[in-house]
């Protein structure tokens, strides 16, 4: 024991973890929540241990290491400590199912998370739950319904919510781009990017940059599309974000192909095939021939 009250240690570690998450420093946040969990476990406090486990799971899911968290989060939800812990566990389960492309399961748990957030009257959690529901609807190509949920999320979200608001604006911007409402899409995506740059949240820029790349492609602005696509690719490589790398390679290949630069298109599509679809030798020639922008959902 350090001589400090245990509760202080726990709260300060959780606070540190939350600040690191807000700054996008997820590896360090994971370590902070892990220490908080250990502190709670040492003190024999199951409720605080569950709380820290939820925090740790949220970060692990964001880092694409959430599979092992799923049974633990389900067990926490089943124990029904209180609405706070239940909301966090349900929200994490919804996020992990979304990552695993189990969208209908994700929707089920996201609605539980929303229900608990409403009972608590926590506007930020209500916003987050609506945002999660919207993400799943968007992944299922239900764009109009997704927009309604994003707008509910935006209405509930506190004005100070920098990174979450930026993500929401980015998602909404992508929806508008899919609808062909490009002027609105650019406004939303540009606001999203500004907020993320201000927050120095590089990892979260990947999605917004990819959406901007897509929107510029739709608008026929090749140079801008390429600029955002290349930055997204660099950030995704740095973060080890496989989905981001895959989508960036596809969009950069599409941009080059539409511009008539078959060599560059072949390079991007070739790398996409080698790294992500090694068994699909026909992929580069297929993408050189077929423009699949209307078939692809970058958020699915």
């Amino acid at each position, binding site marked *: 024991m350090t001589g400090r009250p245990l509760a202080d240690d726990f709260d300060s570690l959780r606070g540190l973890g939350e600040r690191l998450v807000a700054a996008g420093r997820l590896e360090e946040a994971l370590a902070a929540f892990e220490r908080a969990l250990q502190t709670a476990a040492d003190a024999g406090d199951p409720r605080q241990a569950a709380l820290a486990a939820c925090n740790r799971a949220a970060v692990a899911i964001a880092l694409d290491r959430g599979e092992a968290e799923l049974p633990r989060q389900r067990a926490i939800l089943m124990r029904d400590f209180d609405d706070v812990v239940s909301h966090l566990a349900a929200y994490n389960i919804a996020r992990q199912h979304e990552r695993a492309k189990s969208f209908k399961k994700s929707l089920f748990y996201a609605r539980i998370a929303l229900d608990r957030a409403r009972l608590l009257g926590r506007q930020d959690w209500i916003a987050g739950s609506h945002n999660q529901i919207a993400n799943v609807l968007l992944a299922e190509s239900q764009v109009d319904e997704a927009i309604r949920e994003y707008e509910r999320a935006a209405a509930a979200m506190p004005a100070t919510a920098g990174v979450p608001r930026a993500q929401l604006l980015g998602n909404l911007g992508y929806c508008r781009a899919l609808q062909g409402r490009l002027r609105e899409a650019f406004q939303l995506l540009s606001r999203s990017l500004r907020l993320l740059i201000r927050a120095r949240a590089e990892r979260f820029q990947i999605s917004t940059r990819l959406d901007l790349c897509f929107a510029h492609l739709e608008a026929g*602005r090749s140079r801008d599309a390429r600029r955002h696509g290349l930055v997204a690719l660099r950030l995704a490589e740095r973060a080890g974000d496989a989905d981001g790398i895959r989508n960036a390679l596809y969009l950069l290949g599409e941009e080059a192909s*539409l511009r*008539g630069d*078959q060599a560059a298109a072949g390079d991007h599509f070739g790398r996409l095939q080698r790294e992500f679809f090694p068994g*699909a030798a026909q992929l580069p*020639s297929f993408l050189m021939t077929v423009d*699949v922008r209307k078939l692809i959902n970058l958020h*699915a």
Partner: protein
Amino acid sequence: MAAAHKIRQVQLVGRKIRQLRKQHHLTQTELSHRIGIQQSDLSRMEKGEYRVSLDTLFKILAEFNLTVGEFFDGTHADELPPREARLVRDFHDLPGEAQREVEDFIAGKRRQHQTTEPNGN
């Protein structure tokens, strides 16, 4: 941006997936299980109403193990004018090296066209 003539009809791809599925005697349920999506989503995809991830699209292509020529064989004949459809078929019949020579020739012609066009950009 120079407009490349890529095939972009989403309904065309959806229709082709339905046609291939039937040729392989697969129900929507069977194919959707194989590629890991819901049957209702595959149905919407075949109608051109459902966008999918790159993963899912290429799982479908891998499922049928098709070349581009095979994918579009008999499909886009009614989407392109006959002369263009014939050109695409002839192109796909060429060996890889010959296809690259044709691409280089077309790229050269495009550059030539862009530099001679008064308002080209």
